[in-house]
Structure formats: structure tokens, C-alpha cells
């Protein structure tokens, strides 16, 4: 026995934050749990914990983790947590394989990422993994078996059932995206206007009326009979004599049963004499006023699955039964059968245990047995009247045996009732012969049939019914997707997003667009606020009126939850520059930021395109991560990246004099900048870049050049259509520019643009956001100080964690070396700052207002302009 480890005074491993990454993310394409884990010094290398690994392996022998790569990167407790969380899920039967642990810039703090297939299971696995680590540390007990049972049960409880699961799997094989709409079995396939829905084996083409018809057996029989499908003829009778009359008309053997019965109560089958029929009527009429007399169909129960106009699978079904041996009781016989390892308790195995419950006892009773009767040798004793797998019945695949005429009748039955997916119940001796030849018939049709008996029959071959259902919903080359464009970058994303949406809408598509100021469906804003995350993207893809989507994809959402889509057709990265929001969420360097922005590029479809800024080295490098093709854009076509790409005959977009040029091999398309008002004839440099990016995206979607040209010509960026994006106003003969620029790159781009505009005196109104790094705030005013005569600093409405006056002080520091600024003012409140700037304006002056509360500020500016007329 090992010695007890010394008690550590130091606090143990702590999980400070857990996130579910529900889409492609920084780490992988898999859904994953991401946790921030801090380990005290002692736990940063398990090698330093005496006996730990042994205790761990004793508790969870299947755990796997890598050997340390080198001395500098020992295996920490966080790594153990990772391996345990993954291993526990894998042992519970979840198909997971990806996990990773990385150290952050802060010592002892790790990011642990573990794939999941079901979020709740992933979270529970983390919890259990932590308990496991703890128990191994403290040498307390850990009940592995119980943990795995919990995980397995939770997984079985929440994951898609076998029927729905088989359809979803088939969709995934075809590249059709899916999304669960409920915790149950309702699933959306495809996106936007091309979406379809299923609920288990029911689709959105399954008519409610057809389902109602299928539930009315008599109506179903009447309709099938009209269509020439053999059914057990018969009708409803209201007296014993009438029952006998009908039985005589039908001739031969009949069934007498109550119209609304269940569990086979009051049902008499295979009877023929007058005495039998009269007695059966008496019994049936006890259950229901209406009694049905119909022809008895001899033979076995078969279930034929029809999808569309095809027979897809067929199974012979048998109710749970035991065969007497003249020695054992029914109870003992059932126990024997249940000992078969193929019989399980749930859906996981192809056979389920036979239950000897009240229904079974009642069924036995009708056959004259109790659980303790000893049936004679060779006697079949039925334990339930239905053949469902879930209650112990068996299903034997007979798909290949079905005679074409039998299949034809089943298809006719489904089509007559109007079901696109239909379980047809047939009673006959054998499906090898036409029903008509053997007196067989169709007794029932079922909407939303169970698929398990075909997927995993008790005996015989499983059938690809999910594939058949998907093929019936989607044409061969259809994957249910709509074009999706994702736009990322530090600056210009919003304008680029709007430009692309504008071009696509001019192409006749109904556009869904997300961005930092809301969600737009065909220009109607349906949500406000920052909507650049995955939730808004998912909403757009759910919307029935969307033919194409353009998503401004900000880093926040990518970090928090991953992407809202599995892949995109076009990924545009405008630039990274010197970055923005650095220092948040362990994104401390421009390189880190690029990794986040790169996620959309990594998830371009193989047939898709990444549109990348060749002039930004961080962006240009992303080309390596793109599974599809790459289009580069840059003002300078001689930029080495551009030149190389062009030389290979690939797509590039650049500026040539007063034109924007798209070129691929020998193909070239020129669009004069004079035709693109957004660029003010090419004067506003950053807008030219946005235009090039948008052209690249539209080109990737094969939009016709005339449409691209015409739509660039009609794109207006004013305070209404693009609030806060270089909105130009005129105030008492002075030029006013309102913009939401709020990082050094954006401000540099604005200054470049403003410098090309002539003006007497130049003023600027600016605040800074508190969550930016000190040097970024300083840098903003450093740039402005060289370009403006007057700078009006004001306090932002939202200080984002900074003390009062702190931001303004930093901004002022930036102006210390200003070469042009000679007038600096500090104001409290955005509106007062605007008023101050306006008050000093004279004809021919220029004023740049860096708005913060965009809509309110723009409304205020418009109001002030209206006042002067």
C-alpha cells in the first residue's frame, strides 16, 4: 500500500469558466467544451505528485494521455482533466476524438478543450473528470461504472433516437446541414428558404390530413379498396344477426372485433361458424357499440416501408413469444429467452427483453395460461399482441424477398392515403407472391413509422432507410444550403458586409445579413444591437425568406460559441492591421487575433473561396488554411503576394489608376471608380478596399459582372443605410463626417481619406472605449494630432471598467507630440462635444465626429442640421 500523500495546503485545480463551442471554432470543427483551468504550482506537472498517476489509472484504467513533449511542457492536472473528460465520454459510447490543452500567457492557467456530441453529456463528463482528478489526488473512491452509466443514460436520453438519427446521418453524408429545433426529434435540414423539417420519420411533406386518414382504419380501408389495393373486406355491424349476415357474405373465415378497441380486447379471429360469430359479436359489443366483421387474413405480419414511390425495406414481425417444452413455466421460458445477450433494455440492441407485465399476463390469460403454466412442447405462447421491437418483438428483414406486385400494392396504399413516408402493415403467408394470389391484404398504414426494425432488424440485413428518406427530400445535387458569406477583419467589415448583401440582393436573392448593428432580412431590421455572433447567424439560417446570407463575424462570438454555421461559401477577411480589442480573452497579440479571424477561412467549403487582403501579411497567410480557393485583393497589383497569385492564373482584385480590376488568367473586368459613389471617385482609400473585397466575394458566388457593376453604382452609404460608416453631412457650408472608427487602423484610414478632401480648418471629436489597451488609445490621438487643428475629447458613455477621466487622460497623452493640433478641449457628454464642434464651424471647414452611441449621435447631428435649415 502506498503512503498517503502529504496534505497540500495550496488550493487545488480550479475550473473558472466553462463554455460550449457549438460550431466550428478556434480549436477545431467539432463541438467542444472549453474550460479555463488554473492549476497551482504543484499540479502543473503530475510527475511531481507522488503516486498520482497510479491512483488515477487504478480508478480509470482506460485513460490515455500523451507523454510530455519535453521538460518545458510537463503534463499538468489540466491535461489529465482533458484526457479524463474525453475518455469518459468515449467509454460511455460517444463518438468523440478531439481534445486539447494549451497554456495561456498567464502561468498555471490552461485552456482545456474537449469534444462533445451532446452538450449536456460533455458538461457532465467535465464534472465527472474533475471528480476523478480530485479522487485520485486525495485517494478517495471514484465509482467509474456509475459515472459511465450516468453518461450513457444521459446520452441516450437526449441524443436523437434511432429513426431520426439515421435520417440525420444520411443528411450529413450528403453535406446537408442540420439543426435540432426541439429537445425531441424535430430537426431542420438545410437553411433559409431551402430548409426542410422532419420529426422522426415524418417530413414537412407529410400531410396532416393523410395522418388523420391513416388513424381511421375504416376510412383507410375504404380508400385502399377504391384504389384496388387488397384489404380485408368487411363492415361495421350493429346486431349479432347482421354480423352473421356479413360473415356469410364474406364467406370463409372472419375476424369480429370492436371498432374502438385496444390491446386486442374483444377480438375473435379466424372463426367461421354461426355460433362462433354470434358469440364473438356478443363479446365485441361489450367493448364498443360498433362491431366490425371482416375477412380473416391468414399468415404473418409484415411491415413494408414505403418512401416516396418506392418500397425501401420490409420486415417480418413476430410478437414476443416463447415456445413450450413441456417442462418449464412461461415465466422460466421468458427468463431463458431474456438471457440472450442480444436482448437489451433500451434501443441500443437489436432485441429488447420480453416483459412479463400486466399486459403480458392479460395476453396469457386470453390464451388460457398464467405465468406459472407449463405449456406443452412446441406450443407458441404469445406474450403481447403487437410486434414492436421495444416490447420484445422480433423483426426479420425480408426486403429482398418482396414480390414486385406486393411492393406495388404497398406503394399504391401509401400514395392513396397520401403519405410520403409510410409503414404499410401486410398480412399474408409470404411476400414472395402477389397478395391477390394468396388471399393476403393490407391491414393498416402508419404515418411516422418506426425505422429501427429496418435499421437494426433482429435477424437479417439492416437497410439504409435514412438515405432513402433524404433522397426523397433532396434531389441528387441538392444539399439544402443557401450561399453563405462570412466577413471578418478589424476594419471595414460592416461596409463590406453591406456591399456584398447589396450586390446579392440586386441579383434577385432575398438576403439575410447580420452585423454589429442588427439582423436584417431583406433590409428589414429584425433585431438590434450587436448581432455579429453565432446566434444571429443561426436565426438568419432559420428564416424561411432568406435565399443568401452575409454574416459579419466578429471575434466575440467565435470565441464564445464558435461559428453559427458549419461552413461557408465565401470567407472575406478585410485586414488585421495592428488589431483591436487586444488583451481580452487571452488574445494578447495580433497573431492570436489572426487565429480567431482565420476560423471563417478554415471553414470555407472545399468548393468555396476565401477573399483575402494580400497587403495585410497576417491576412495573406491565412490562404494556407483555406480548404477552397483564394481570391486576393490589394490596391497594388505588384505586391508580391498579388503578383505571385496572378502569375498562377488565380483570381485577384486590384486598383489600376481610376479602375478596380478583377483578373483571373486572361480574364479581366474593369470597373471605373467614378461609377462607385462610395469611394468618392476613388478618393476614399479604405472604401476602395472594401469595394475590392466585396467584388471578390460576389465573383466567388458567380454573380454576373453587369449586376456587380450596377449594384456598386447604386450602393449608398449614408446615415440611414450605413450608420456610422463615413456618413457625410453639410453644416453651414462646412463638411461633417460621422464615423464609428474606434481603433488605430480605422482612424488612420479615416485620416487618409479626410486628407484627400480639401478644407480650411479641420476639427475632430473623439472619445475612447475603456476596454482598449492604453497604447491603442494613445495611438489614436497620435494619429489625429498630426491631421487636425482642433481636437475635442469627451468621456464615453460606457467606460468599460475604467475610472472616470482615465480614458481622456490617455487620449490627451497621445496628443503630446501632435504636430498640427493647437486646440484641445475636454468635454463631458457626447452631445455637448458635438455642440462644441459645431459652434466653431465656418464655411469651408471640415469636422470629423467619431460617434460612440451611433444612432443617438446621428439623430442628434441630423436634428442640429435641420435646425439651421
Amino acid at each position, binding site marked *: 500500500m502506498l503512503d498517503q500523500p502529504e496534505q497540500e495546503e495550496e488550493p487545488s485545480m480550479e475550473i473558472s469558466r466553462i463554455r460550449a463551442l457549438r460550431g466550428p471554432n478556434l480549436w477545431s470543427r467539432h463541438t467542444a467544451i472549453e474550460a479555463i483551468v488554473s492549476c497551482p504550482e504543484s499540479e502543473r506537472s503530475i510527475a511531481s505528485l507522488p503516486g498520482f498517476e497510479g491512483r488515477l489509472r487504478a480508478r480509470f484504467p482506460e485513460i490515455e494521455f500523451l507523454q510530455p513533449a519535453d521538460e518545458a511542457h510537463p503534463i499538468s492536472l489540466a491535461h489529465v482533466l482533458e484526457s479524463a473528460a474525453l475518455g469518459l465520454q468515449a467509454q460511455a459510447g460517444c463518438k468523440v476524438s478531439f481534445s486539447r490543452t494549451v497554456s495561456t500567457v498567464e502561468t498555471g492557467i490552461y485552456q482545456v478543450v474537449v469534444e462533445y456530441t451532446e452538450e449536456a453529456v460533455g458538461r457532465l463528463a467535465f464534472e465527472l473528470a474533475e471528480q476523478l482528478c480530485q479522487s485520485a489526488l486525495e485517494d478517495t473512491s471514484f465509482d467509474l461504472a456509475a459515472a459511465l452509466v450516468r453518461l450513457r443514460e444521459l446520452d441516450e436520453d437526449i441524443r436523437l433516437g434511432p429513426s431520426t438519427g439515421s435520417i440525420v446521418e444520411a443528411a450529413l453524408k450528403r453535406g446537408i446541414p442540420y439543426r435540432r*429545433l*426541439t429537445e425531441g426529434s*424535430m430537426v431542420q435540414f438545410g437553411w433559409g428558404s431551402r430548409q426542410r*423539417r*422532419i*420529426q422522426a420519420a*415524418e*417530413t*414537412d*411533406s*407529410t*400531410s*396532416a*390530413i*393523410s*395522418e*388523420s*386518414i391513416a388513424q*381511421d382504419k375504416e*376510412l383507410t380501408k375504404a*380508400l385502399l*379498396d*377504391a*384504389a*384496388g389495393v387488397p384489404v380485408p373486406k368487411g363492415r361495421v355491424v350493429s346486431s349479432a344477426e347482421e354480423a352473421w349476415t356479413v360473415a356469410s357474405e364474406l364467406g370463409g373465415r372472419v375476424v369480429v372485433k370492436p371498432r374502438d378497441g385496444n390491446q386486442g380486447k374483444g377480438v375473435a379471429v379466424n372463426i367461421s361458424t354461426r355460433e362462433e360469430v354470434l358469440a364473438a359479436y356478443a363479446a365485441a359489443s361489450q367493448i364498443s357499440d360498433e362491431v366490425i366483421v371482416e375477412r380473416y387474413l391468414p399468415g404473418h405480419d409484415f411491415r413494408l416501408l414505403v418512401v416516396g414511390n418506392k418500397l425501401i425495406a420490409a420486415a417480418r414481425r413476430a410478437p414476443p413469444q416463447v415456445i413450450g417444452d413441456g417442462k418449464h413455466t412461461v415465466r422460466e421460458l421468458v427468463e431463458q429467452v431474456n438471457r440472450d445477450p442480444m436482448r437489451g433494455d433500451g434501443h441500443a440492441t437489436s432485441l429488447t427483453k420480453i416483459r412479463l407485465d400486466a399486459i403480458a399476463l392479460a395476453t396469457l390469460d386470453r390464451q388460457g395460461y398464467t405465468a406459472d403454466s407449463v405449456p406443452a412442447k412446441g406450443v407458441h405462447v404469445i406474450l403481447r399482441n403487437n410486434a414492436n421491437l421495444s416490447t420484445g418483438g422480433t423483426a426479420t428483414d425480408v426486403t429482398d424477398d418482396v414480390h414486385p406486385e406486393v411492393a406495388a400494392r404497398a406503394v*399504391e396504399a401509401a*400514395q*392513396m392515403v*397520401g403519405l410520403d413516408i409510410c409503414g404499410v402493415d401486410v398480412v399474408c403467408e409470404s411476400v414472395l407472391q402477389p397478395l391477390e394470389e394468396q388471399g393476403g391484404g393490407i391491414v393498416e398504414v402508419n*404515418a*411516422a413509422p418506426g425505422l429501427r426494425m429496418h435499421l437494426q432488424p433482429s435477424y437479417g440485413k439492416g437497410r439504409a432507410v435514412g438515405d432513402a428518406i433524404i433522397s426523397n427530400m433532396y434531389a441528387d445535387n441538392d444539399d439544402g444550403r443557401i450561399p453563405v458569406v462570412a466577413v471578418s477583419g478589424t476594419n471595414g467589415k460592416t461596409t463590406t458586409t453591406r456591399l456584398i448583401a447589396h450586390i446579392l440582393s440586386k441579383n434577385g436573392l432575398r438576403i439575410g445579413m447580420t452585423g454589429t448593428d442588427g*439582423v436584417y*432580412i431583406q433590409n*428589414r431590421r*429584425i*433585431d438590434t444591437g450587436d448581432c455579429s455572433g453565432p446566434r444571429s447567424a*443561426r*436565426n438568419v439560417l*432559420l*428564416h*424561411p*425568406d432568406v435565399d443568401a446570407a452575409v454574416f459579419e463575424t466578429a471575434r466575440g462570438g467565435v470565441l464564445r460559441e464558435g461559428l453559427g454555421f458549419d461552413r461557408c461559401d465565401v470567407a472575406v477577411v478585410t485586414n488585421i492591421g495592428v488589431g483591436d480589442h487586444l488583451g481580452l480573452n487571452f488574445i494578447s497579440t495580433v497573431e492570436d487575433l489572426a487565429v480567431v479571424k482565420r476560423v471563417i477561412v478554415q471553414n470555407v467549403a472545399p468548393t468555396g473561396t476565401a477573399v483575402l487582403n494580400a497587403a495585410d501579411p497576417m491576412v495573406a497567410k491565412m490562404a494556407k488554411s483555406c480548404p477552397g480557393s483564394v481570391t486576393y485583393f490589394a490596391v497594388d497589383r505588384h505586391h508580391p503576394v498579388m503578383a505571385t497569385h496572378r502569375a498562377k492564373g488565380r483570381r485577384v482584385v486590384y486598383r489600376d489608376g481610376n479602375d478596380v480590376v478583377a483578373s483571373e488568367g486572361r480574364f479581366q473586368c474593369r470597373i471605373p471608380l467614378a461609377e462607385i459613389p462610395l469611394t468618392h471617385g476613388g478618393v476614399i482609400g479604405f472604401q476602395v478596399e472594401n469595394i475590392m473585397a466585396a467584388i471578390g466575394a460576389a465573383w466567388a458566388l458567380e454573380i454576373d459582372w453587369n449586376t456587380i457593376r450596377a449594384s456598386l453604382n447604386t450602393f449608398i452609404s449614408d446615415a440611414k443605410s450605413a450608420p456610422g460608416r463615413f456618413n457625410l453631412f453639410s453644416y453651414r457650408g462646412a463638411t461633417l463626417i460621422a464615423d464609428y472608427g474606434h481603433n488605430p487602423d480605422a482612424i488612420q484610414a479615416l485620416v487618409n481619406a479626410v486628407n484627400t478632401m480639401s478644407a480650411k480648418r479641420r476639427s475632430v471629436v473623439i472619445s475612447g472605449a475603456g476596454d482598449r489597451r492604453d497604447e491603442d488609445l494613445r495611438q489614436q490621438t497620435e494619429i489625429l494630432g498630426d491631421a487636425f487643428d482642433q481636437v475635442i475629447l469627451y468621456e464615453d458613455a460606457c467606460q468599460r471598467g475604467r475610472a472616470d477621466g482615465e480614458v481622456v487622460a490617455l487620449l490627451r497623452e497621445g496628443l503630446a507630440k501632435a504636430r498640427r493640433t493647437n486646440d484641445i478641449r475636454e468635454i463631458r457628454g457626447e452631445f455637448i462635444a458635438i455642440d462644441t464642434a459645431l459652434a466653431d464651424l465656418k464655411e469651408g471647414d471640415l469636422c470629423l465626429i467619431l460617434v460612440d452611441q451611433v444612432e443617438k449621435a446621428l439623430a442628434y447631428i441630423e436634428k442640429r442640421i435641420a435646425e439651421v435649415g
Partner: protein
Amino acid sequence: MNKKYIDIINVISLRGPNIWTYRPVLEAWLDIGDLEDFPSHTIPGFYERLTAVLPGLIEHHCGVGERGGFLQRLREGTWAGHVLEHVMIELQNLAGMQSGFGQTRSTSTRGVYKMAVRARHEEVSKAALYAARDLVMSAIEDKPFDVAAIVKKLRDMVDSLCLGPSTACIVDAATDRRIPSIRLNEGNLVQLGYGVNQRRIWTAETDRTPAIAESISSDKDLTKSLLASCGVPVPEGCMVENAEAAWEAAEDIGLPVVVKPSDGNHGRGVSTNLTTREDIEAAFKLAAEEGSEVLVERFIPGDEHRLLVVGGRLVAAAKGEAAWVTGDGTSTVEQLIDSQINTDPRRGTTEDFPLNLVLIDEDPAVRLELSRQGYEPGSVPEKGKQVLVQRNGNVAFDVTDKVHPEVAAMVSLAARVVGLDIAGVDLVAEDISRPLEEQGGAIVEVNAGPGLLMHLKPASGEPRPVGRAIVNHLFAENESGRIPIVGIAGSHGKTMLARLVARLMHLHGWYVGVACSDGLYFNERLIDKSDCANWKSGHRVLLNRAVEAGVFEHDARSMLTEGLAYDRCKVGVVTNINPSELVPDFHIDDVEKLIKVIRTQVDVVLPDGVAVLNAADPRVVELAPLCDGEVMYFGLTPDLPALTAQRAANARAVFIRDGQIMLAVGEDESALCPLSEIPLAASSVWPDRLENILGAVAAAWAAGLPADLIRTGLETFDEELAPAADAPAR
């Protein structure tokens, strides 16, 4: 013998076009015995007694053609059978089953009449028939008769047996567009159109209403979340665990709020328009007492509205209004409701009334509303005090024309998001003529299979043609729901002709249903070997969703006993009319009467259809003027008079010239193929068989089949179709 009594000796239900009319009728054979000697004006007091119990008879125009026409006949003297016909019609009308058509004819037997009256429902009409007989007899015999009681009984039958008003309005709209309908069950399941072109409705559900969409609409939370994702305003809300959480939620959502049990009904435990923390916490306790989870939701000010969306378009909108009473200082609330609300003539208990009666005993919501204001049903409010009885009464005030286009677009989107082709969208807003966002309005529920009554019979405003909207949604403007139907009547040759036409259509690629005396065939598969030239088999063909074309054989007997299975046909063929087909037991005892039976086949030809007639039979030729559509003749020789006249009028004809089958349009003729190339003709010595072949060619041509295909078909026919065809007298 002295029998002054009307005996009903036979009742026949003619379920389709028949000797009397296009529509289903109930035919009764009446033996009026010695009443034959007592026409109406000879029975003292009969006129007065009858008009006293049935004043509505004044509306019956009868043969006279104007209001009071029937009464004039009654005064001048008419016979008991005719009187019975009008009384039956009147009783049916009083029961709410409109029936315009009636006719009575004498037979060759003295005192025996055949009477036919439009029958929208067989069972009700039968009851009306016997009631009418009893009523007429009581008027003749001057005995009392309780008209009100019998009308009530018939009305109850109509209510329970006939289509409900919503379904009926859709079926009527289909009829207006000449789309045929077939009721499929005892409920409201109706097939519109025939065969492959049929659509189905079940009240306001169609065969395009997905079951999944219905599941979604019945899950309020799921509906709300889907709508919210797509930008449709809904009452945002969340479940809360305790009173404090309720207040936090209210602050998040924004005041005022509603606090209610998540699965409550009748407004029990619901508190609305709450603005203060105290109220909200108190409301939580109230809701929690109902034993379910508690929901805090944004309060949506305004009235309830129901907007009906059909096929993506808003077609009707109705508004609910609050009901108030004003105290008089002496009456109880219950009395005030009776005197101030329930006296409204628009209020009643049946579907005929746009508004329901307010019944405190049956409506817990009313009781709850009163108790919120501190009243019991027996309280006496002071004079002038306004008491709210129903916050949202029946939603039955039409506001269709006021709906703002953005609201219409929003409800249409809501229906689309849920996936319903027909949806009743419940919406709360203060002013339906303004966009929802600017007034904080919201969509609260999306209903599948919505009731249509509020739009058909609004309490105020104009009724909306919702039935038409639904039919137009199911059938494009150029769609009739019909399939090409060829009906074949005549004394013999029908079966072979039917099988030949069917074979040609089959070769054309159609899935053909054939109901003929050889049996019932679907797509050349024999389904039933017995004689299937009857209504029931024809009905099966029309029901079959696979059938793209139908061929029906009719003999005189089935036309007399059942009527045709279809209402109109594309092609009506009459081969010949001769005495071998007389049906003496149905009083069809001479050829003139037989012609009246057979003519039905020509009567039912659609205006864009064709009657195909044998030019060699003058009795058949006589039917030509009855055809609404084109007439095409066929004959063995080109010089038959009817045929030459026909060609002179530039019409189509089929005949044999120089051993070739010719297709002619006016004077232009073209050879289809020589008889020698047709195995069926070459081996035949029967001229009848040649006529059948020509009839089949003409029918196929009339049905729009190309000549090349007809030729190929004829050349490949085998003898299998012949034997049955040669059997005499079919």
C-alpha cells in the same frame, strides 16, 4: 277501393347526374290512389291549411316562373305528388339545406308518379320526404301537424350529418369554379377534383398542411421561439421559480407584464398589466397556486385579433371586443348580462350566430373577470357603474380592410415560419392599422385548421370570401381538378369501345381507370371481375389518386338507379339507342323514354368537351343539340346525312373511305390507317365491331390523343379486347 293516401312505393337515391338533373336527387315513386281524382282546388280548406303552416311556399316559382307561381298552381288545381314535391323542398329549406330543384312526372300507371327533389344529404332528404308526405296528408285530412318540431328534427340532422359551415363554404367556392367534390367520410373530409388532380380538405386543413407544422403550432413555446428568431414580435417571457425572480424577469422584459401559470386555462391565476414589484410578487403567488410553472410575459396592450392567412396571403381579419354592462342600481350582474348583452340579436348558441351568449355558469373566465373587479354574479352594481364582463369576447368584428400592410406581411411570415398553408394567427394590438412594432403589438398564437365562421358571418362588417381564397390556393386559375373522363352510353358496343379507348389512353402514358361491364381496371390491372358499369366502380376510379384518365361505361339501368359517378365529362360517347335496352320495371317502356335516359351522357359533356355520336343512328343524332361542347360524329360511310351536315359545318368526324379510317375536320380529311392494318378489324365480320373501333378512334381524338398514337394503338391491338366486345347487347 277508396284510397286517398300518398303511398311512397319506392325511394331511389340518384347520387350523380341523372334523368332529372345534374345534381344528386332523391327519387320517390308515389302512388296517390284516388287522390288522382282530387286535385288541390277540390279539397276544401287545403290551400289555406297548407299555406298557413308553410308560408314560405309563396317563394316557390314553380313552372309559372315568378314568386307565388306554385301557390297559383295550387289554387288552380294541381295533384298531390306535385304538392308533396314543393312541401319537401320547403321543409329542406327550412332545415337549412337549400334545395332548388324538384320535379314530378306521371307514369303510365294511373295514380303513380315519379318525383325527384335535390338531395344534398340522402338521409336528411329521406326524412324530409316522409315528413312532407305526413304534412300534406294532415293538410288534406285537416289534422294537426307540428311543423316546428319536424323542422327542428331536420335541422338537427343537417347539423350533425351535413358538412359544417366552414367546409361547406370551401366546397361551395369549389363548385363556383366548377371543381367537383366528393365527401370522403361522415365528417368534413372532402376531395376536390378527381383522380390524380384531386386535392383534399378537412375543414380548414388541406393536403398541403404538414403534420409537423401542426405539431409546431400546438407547442406554444416552440412557436414563440421560432417566431422570435425570425423577427416576429411575440410576448417575450420566461419561466420563474419564485416571486423575486418574477420581479427580476419583469425588469428584464420591461413593464408592464403578465404573470400566469404556464399551462393554465380560462385565465385562472392570470394577472395582467402589472407594473409594481408588490403586484408582481402577489401575482406570482396567485399563479403558483395553480400548481404549474409560472410565466412572466410582456404585457401586450390592445384587443385580440384573428387574422386568417391562406397560401401566404392575408385574406380576412377579425377583431375581438370587450363586453361591458352598466349598473342600474337594482339588477344583478347576471341580470345585466342578460338584458344588456344577451339580447343582442347577433348572439345565440348555434353556429348561425356570429356571437355567443355570455353564460356565467359555463364560462369561468367571465366569473374570474368579475371577481377581479370584486363582483359575484349576484352582486348589484351601483347605477351608472361600468362592469367589464369579457376582456376579449368573440373575435367576430371584421377589420380586414384596416390591416396595415406590414401587419399583413408579419402574420404571413408567422404562418410561413410555422409552416402552415392555412393559419389563424392570433394577434394582440391596439390598432391593427398601424405596424406592430410601433405600438408594442405581438403575435400570441398561430393556429392550424382555424375556424372560418367569424369571417363568413362577422358580427359587423362584410363577410369575406375565405372559401374562395382556399380554393384558389389549392387550384391555380387554369386548374379545374378534373381528369379527362370518357363516358360511354348506348345500347351495345360500349364495353369494347371503353376498353379500346382505355388502351389508347394507356399507350398515351396515362394511368387509366376503367369501369365497364368487363370489370374494373386500374392501369390495365383487373381489380374486380364482376360487372363494374355502375356508380360504385366509377366512384372508385374518381377516388384513386393515381388515375390520370377515366373511362366509364353506363347502361340505362345504372343511370336510372344510381346516376353517373362524375358530374361532367370531357368526352360523352353514345353508340346507339335501341329497344333492347328498355327498362320496363322503371317505367322506361318505350324508346322515347329511353332517349331521355341516355341523353344524360350528352348533357354532362363539358363546354370544352366533345359529344361523340354515331351518325348512323337517328335517335343518337337527335341528342346533338343538347351538348354544351363540340359534337363529333362517327360512321361507317362518309355519306351518312348527319355526318355530311356536320362536315359542312366545319366540324370533326371519323369514318371509313376506301378501306381507310379517315379523320376529318370540315372538308379536310386525312387517312389514319387502312382497316387492313388493324388486326381487330381485319378478322371481324361484325359491322358493329367496326363502329366500335370508329367510336373509340373518335373518342380518343376527342380526348386529345395524337393521331400517330391512335394509329399505333389500333395496329397493335390484340384479339383479347374483342370477345367481350362481341357479346351482344352491351
